[in-house]
């Protein structure tokens, strides 16, 4: 019996998974909140002492003092997690709380190239949260509104702050919230698509991270990439799955 665990300490949530005999035994997603160390310890305390564990995510430094826990980058973690969920995939779009990554895999599933936003929140989960909030939508409503909306409006600003003022302008000129929602989703998708083409990524593509829960994003990605785009109920925990797989070796 092989059992291993992975933890992905992200900016918004902490993802934790235990793999047993090649399958997911149990998993959990908890908010990082202001005391991530406490949440991390609570999760780790549920583990038997001899289970191999690997960590990733922004909070990985929290575990650095504990030298026995190896650390891998989020890129590697998401790449192998996505490959576990969809063995044929050749690229990954990871939409996290404070960053977005596009990863191209070679045919063997190794990371060939990757691209990531730098300091700004454009295209990230946070961007979508702020915009949904501006329109008085929950994230679910925001995504369904985007599916209902019509193409046509273009949000030219990729900066969260400027996009917010652009929305105010659009609302005041009578545009519908559905159409604005769609335009905002397009702005994220277009931005990520640029990163995607820059590194020569190809499909099939897996969306991982919290952004995978947004149906409109997956829909628009299919439209622009013209190839298969998959999401899974485990997409959000792909990074922790990748860690648990690394821990097995």
């Amino acid at each position, binding site marked *: 019996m092989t059992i291993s665990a992975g933890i992905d300490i992200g900016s918004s949530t902490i993802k934790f998974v235990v793999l047993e005999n090649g399958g997911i035994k149990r998993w959990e997603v908890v908010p990082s909140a202001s005391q991530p160390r406490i949440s991390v310890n609570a999760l780790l305390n549920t583990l038997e002492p001899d289970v191999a564990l690997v960590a990733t995510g922004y909070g990985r430094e929290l575990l650095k003092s504990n030298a026995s826990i190896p650390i*891998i980058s989020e890129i590697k973690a998401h790449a192998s997690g996505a490959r576990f969920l969809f063995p044929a995939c050749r690229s990954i779009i990871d939409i996290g709380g404070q960053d977005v990554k596009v990863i191209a895999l070679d045919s063997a599933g190794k990371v060939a190239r990757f691209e990531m936003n730098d300091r700004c929140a454009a295209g990230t989960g946070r961007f979508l949260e702020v915009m949904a909030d501006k329109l008085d939508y929950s994230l679910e409503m925001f995504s369904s509104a985007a599916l209902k909306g019509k193409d046509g409006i273009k949000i030219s600003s990729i900066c969260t702050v400027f996009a917010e003022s652009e929305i105010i302008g659009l609302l005041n000129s009578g545009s519908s919230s559905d159409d604005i929602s769609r335009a905002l989703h397009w702005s994220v998708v277009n931005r990520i698509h640029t990163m995607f083409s820059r590194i020569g990524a190809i499909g099939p593509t897996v969306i991982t991270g919290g952004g995978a829960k947004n149906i409109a994003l997956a829909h628009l990605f299919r439209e622009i990439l013209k190839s298969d785009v998959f999401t899974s109920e485990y997409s959000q925990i792909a990074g922790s799955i990748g860690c648990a797989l690394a821990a097995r070796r």
Partner: protein
Amino acid sequence: MATDYRPMWKELGLNLENHDKLMEVLGKVYGDIFVSQKNRPQKTDYLDFVMSEVHGLRIKELVDAKKQGRKVVGTYCTFVPEEIILAADAIMVGLCAGADFATEQVDRILPKNLCALIKSTFGFKLGGVCPYLEASDLVVGENTCDGKKKAYEVFKNLVKDLYVMDLPQTKSPQAKELLKSEYVKFISRIEKLTGNKITPEKLRKGIEIVNAKRKAVYRLSETRKNNPVPISGLDSLLVNQIFFYEDPVRFTQQINSLCDELENRVSSGTGSFPENAPRILVSGCPMAVPNWKVPAIVETSGAVIVAEESCVGERGTRNLVEGGSSMDALIDALVDRYLQIDCAIYSPNPDRLSHIREMYKKYKADGVILYGIQFCTPYAVEAMGIEKELENSGIPAIRIETDYSQEDVGQLKTRIQAFIERLTK
């Protein structure tokens, strides 16, 4: 133990309160990044000493020299020939440009979207924290990029004496003429400043001193080809940084003795990093003291930097000044040497890519980090093309664009660690 340099700083016109703050941060950062490194060569104690006295003893030397009538010339660029300055018995020092300081004051006179290096130049002046600048009798600017060129127009009003050297932007025969005429003009300006006539003998002596300094750095680079690497990239970068303001003769002597140790380490197989650690070539914008952000992330992520294709590095030190006995021939030799610097302000600039490929091979690197300071257009544009060229020929490359702030350290760590993982599989 410490000598009290406060009266000296005050006399130079530093803002003591700001300066205390800067020194406190600098000391802490240096401890965290340099002193904490494992398996450092013993002779890096020279680097520690130089850094601990960076605003102390070295400044006192400058002040003492000034009292004896020597002049101090502050510079910002590798295109300013130290040979000419030394030939007039003056002292050249590279000026501070590697950290954010007095940012609010800077933002009042410079636009937001300007590179951190230029802003830092202004910040150190406005904050009154650079003793090198305050000790300089002449500050030399140069027409490199648009940002610097225009910023010097503003900087002129802040310093007592600013001389701006024009530089060509191509490598044509006319460019050579321009650079030569600029160097001739610079010679008269330095003669006027010092009251000393620059003779061919004196210029040859200056050339000799600077060539010897370059050779010491070549010797150090040579040791970094080995596996394990006998010295960290951070310490090597620091050598290249103090190259600009340490006494050239002492520097040469000390670095040569560091190299003696490094060569011994190579023969005994002693490394600063474990054998087979992933090897990185850093290429791009210069890193001025104390800009150690990216190298520190690389080297705490398990990889080692084996060379710098940078003005503070091999681009700046490559090629000696050779030949010439008459004044005219010596100036030609200077021009020939300096015009080969493949700075991104030149158009086109194909030599830079060839040098990156050559260094990648020579130092047995596994990957290239294309380092850019945000808003540095010349290097940013080159980086995109170079990245593609390198990847197409199977050389892993990543573009990193950042500034002197700490806010993007998390993202940078993720990207750099993932890049290193790509090299190790």
